[in-house]
């Protein structure tokens, strides 16, 4: 199944990446090449096979419910594009 230009536009919107028509057309051909490669895997019979999400069969660790992080907002916000009064600034969302 091949992707369409509309698929590319829809996915670009979901991924929040601006894309113009020329770019969408160029990327469409490349994505279809990749999905042709991926199709080889889709034909495999995987009945009864458990999906493998982790390389080793280990479980997630639990830790005590205790505060371990210290306040480092000054360090972290020093690399932010726009900060005022310890707050990250973004374009106005609510009119």
């Amino acid at each position: 199944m091949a992707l369409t230009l509309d698929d590319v536009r829809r996915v670009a919107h979901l991924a929040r990446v601006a894309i113009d028509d020329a770019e969408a057309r160029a990327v469409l051909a490349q994505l279809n090449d990749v999905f042709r490669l991926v199709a080889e895997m889709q034909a495999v019979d995987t009945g009864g096979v458990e999906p493998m999400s982790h390389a080793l069969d280990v479980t997630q660790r639990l830790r005590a419910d205790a505060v371990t992080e210290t306040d480092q907002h000054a360090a972290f916000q020093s690399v932010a594009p726009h900060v005022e009064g310890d707050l990250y600034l973004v374009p106005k969302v609510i009119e």
Partner: protein
Amino acid sequence: MHNATIKSLAADLAARKFSSVELTRHFLSRIRVLNLKYNCFITVDDAASLKLAQAADDLRAAGRAGPLTGIPIAQKDIFCAKGWLTTCGSKMLSNFISPYDAHVVEQLNGAGAVNIGKTNMDEFAMGSSSETSYYGPVRNPWNADTVPGGSSGGSAAAVAARLAPGAIGTDTGGSIRQPAALSGVCGLKPTYGVVSRYGMIAFASSLDQGGPMARTAEDLALMMNVMAGFDARDSTSLERAREDYAREIGKAVKGLKIGLPKEFFAEGAEAGVSAAVEAAIAAYRKLGCETVEVSLPNMKLAVPVYYVLAPAEASSNLARYDGVRYGHRAPDHADLTDMYKRTRAQGFGQEVKRRILIGTYVLSHGYYDAYYIQAQKVRRLVARDFAEAFRRCDVIMGPTSPTTAFRLGEKIGDPVKMYLNDIYTIPANLAGLPGMSIPCGFDGKGLPVGLQIVGNTFAEAKMLGIAHQYQLATDWHLRIPPECEA
């Protein structure tokens, strides 16, 4: 000094033949000249490196030096290093001075290693040629018209060009082993979970693993002894007792069973690659090893599986680059959504955007089961093939890459062609197994060939010992790119 191994530099530092400050100055002066040609480094900070070198000399004076104290180590620009520009090869992070250290960087600093600079790489580690970097392509010291491999191409080329005796890299689908092969150096991707991913900028979290690159197996072991270890801040870091990765360095390989997967030796590799790899296996037979044919029947599915799983995980990981908390923000925008979209369109390069789109698509409503879940199931089939193979052998060997270094621009326009370059390396990532590449000869064009060794879970020390025995019997790892000798 620059042709010496980490082990011999450590001995000379211990014998006070020179100081770390002198050694660091030597490498910095080489970098100043040779980096213009090879573009291995994105950031070099003489003052910061020399400060670390002075601290290492002080540590030694205080009697607290270890094997890596005072040794210059190049760091792939994917590792966050406090106070250092950390770009991951992207415009998105072109202004990101890291406010913290990665666990691996903490470990190296703690051992007194000297960060000699941050190395160039494919953008967000997505590539096999180090050409997708926002900072321009890295060139291969063996032939500057060819690529060094990728994504850890800057680290591999830096070690090959004798700009650092060791470097750190990361490997998601072959990004340590393939550039090691194409640049004629050694590289190890440990078992998934052995090296902490904390502060290592995430690409595909279920596959990403950091590891060492150097010129000898013995040096890799010395680096692993510092880099490995449990870290609670990485949820997939493994709680294991510390081990000495150099403990099997002196061990003979007589009687070792080497598995040769027939799929690794079917058509596909260039003649020059096959010839060098077969000669290496003959050398192991001469050392008393036995060889046995094994099979990884699902290997051909590894690349298709990888190009579902890795982009899916990347699209999720890279959602964090929104122009709000760090990194690039588009200067002009209509509203918040427009700001996100323009920021990401401007900050990411073509290959990264392509993978984000693939990943978003395979995770989107209605496609998740057919792509992502199916890929996870086939991943298990690939892992089972290895488990089956390791019932019959101690390690697996084959080529690291089907080709030697290719020309700049040769594959960059055809993503699928580039992806297939990782056909021999991706399977170990999917199975979470340790894999390494060591130099094993040259092709007719004078370009290096890598021998891949894949071991069972936690077999790193054994693999390093096996590689060391080969390096005692051969001298491929000692060859120097002619233009980097002086």
